[in-house]
């Protein structure tokens, strides 16, 4: 379990993380979304013990991470700008990781060499961007981390490799309860991957939620009603109401079935649930906590 409390990190005058509290359960995949400069990478660097916080603390399995080699042996942080030794091949990098990570799995490495379409005896600096990513992901998984921190890790991967990496990661989670944190500025990239998402904005987590609850917690309804009734009295928690003639579009908190029944009971001649994209759910939730989503670019 990763736990942060009042975590603060500033670079000079710039406060990158501001009193951030969050908990990430073991075995879950936590997606962190946010615009550029919102603090995603800073949070991962604090969790992996690269940075020392200016205030608050971050603990993994109830231990401080900073300068804690035993714990770091179980954490792998894959930065968005990949680093390889100059002129090194993938095999040479594997030799390096073997010395750093005591749990490096040689059998797995041999297996992955066959799975990933890259030549591990070639210099990495001759690789394309996507191939470099593959090499880094492959090495990361071989280090057998309990905590895998991925910063924009799927950037530049083709769909086939992306699916393969996804399957490998899911297998690791199921097998040995690996915990994954993955950041992206694109919500769509995370939705088929994560079970929890947190939205980071200006160094704070605006909200975090179980993805399934998020999907089921709001529904959009289109109905034909001559005039606006008292929604509250009908048991509806209406977050948004837009009217065009006799047609109303409602954004309601609650399950689709109950909402449809309630709107029907108000005497609507036509009611229909309209599917909601995850982005719309986010907009709804953001407005619910008083933020204007339009100012947060994804």
């Amino acid at each position, binding site marked *: 379990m990763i736990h942060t409390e009042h975590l603060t990190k500033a670079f000079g005058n710039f406060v990158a993380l501001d009193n951030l509290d969050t908990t990430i359960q073991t075995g879950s995949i936590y997606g962190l979304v946010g615009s550029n400069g919102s603090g995603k990478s800073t949070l991962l660097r604090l969790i992996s013990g690269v940075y020392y916080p200016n205030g608050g603390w971050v603990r993994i399995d109830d231990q401080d991470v900073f300068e804690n080699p035993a714990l770091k042996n179980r954490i792998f942080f894959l930065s968005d700008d990949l680093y390889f030794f100059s002129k090194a091949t993938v095999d040479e990098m594997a030799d390096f990781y073997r010395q750093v990570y005591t749990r490096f799995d040689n059998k797995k490495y041999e297996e992955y060499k066959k799975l990933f379409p890259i030549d591990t005896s070639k210099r990495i600096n001759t690789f394309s961007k996507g191939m470099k990513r593959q090499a880094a992901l492959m090495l990361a998984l071989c280090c057998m981390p309990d905590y895998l921190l991925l910063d924009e890790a799927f950037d530049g991967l083709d769909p086939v490799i992306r699916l393969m990496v996804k399957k490998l990661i899911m*297998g690791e989670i199921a097998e040995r309860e690996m915990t994954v944190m993955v950041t992206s500025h694109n919500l769509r990239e995370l939705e088929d991957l994560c079970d929890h998402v947190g939205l980071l904005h200006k160094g704070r987590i605006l909200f975090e939620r179980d993805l399934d609850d998020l999907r089921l917690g709001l529904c959009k309804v289109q109905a034909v009603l001559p005039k606006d009734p008292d929604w509250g009295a009908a048991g509806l928690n209406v977050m948004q109401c837009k009217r065009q003639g006799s047609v109303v579009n409602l954004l309601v908190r609650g399950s689709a079935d109950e909402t449809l029944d309630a709107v029907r009971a108000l005497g609507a001649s036509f009611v229909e649930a309209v599917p909601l994209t995850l982005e719309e759910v986010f907009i709804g939730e953001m407005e619910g906590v008083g933020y204007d989503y339009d100012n947060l670019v994804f």
Partner: protein
Amino acid sequence: MIKLDLQSRTPLYLQMEQQLIDLILLGQLHENDQLPSVRNFARDLGINPNTIQKAYQDLENRGIIYSAAGRGNFVASPSAAGDLKRRECMQTLDGLLGDARRAGVSREEVHAAVDAAYDKPKEGDAQ
């Protein structure tokens, strides 16, 4: 045997539940058949194991599958799945009939469609 639509608005765990129920009703999965382990499912489909666990847990709560500690998950009596599916069908039918009425489909046409459907040879039905 399971196909998930990642673009759909329906949560993946609900899609999984639906499809497992359909497989049970179609007779592809029999009573006491073992379901794939969470681990294998996760790896084969590339789906978050927590999602699969959630689907299994929910199906167990609804009495459609049962779990045996350390051995895995198994199909319970198909009647539970049947009841659920029947209820859902009636709900869908209700909505569709409303649409049909509004679109001007006559009572006789609906009756004829019902008769036709029920007289059809049992193709793809449970034995």
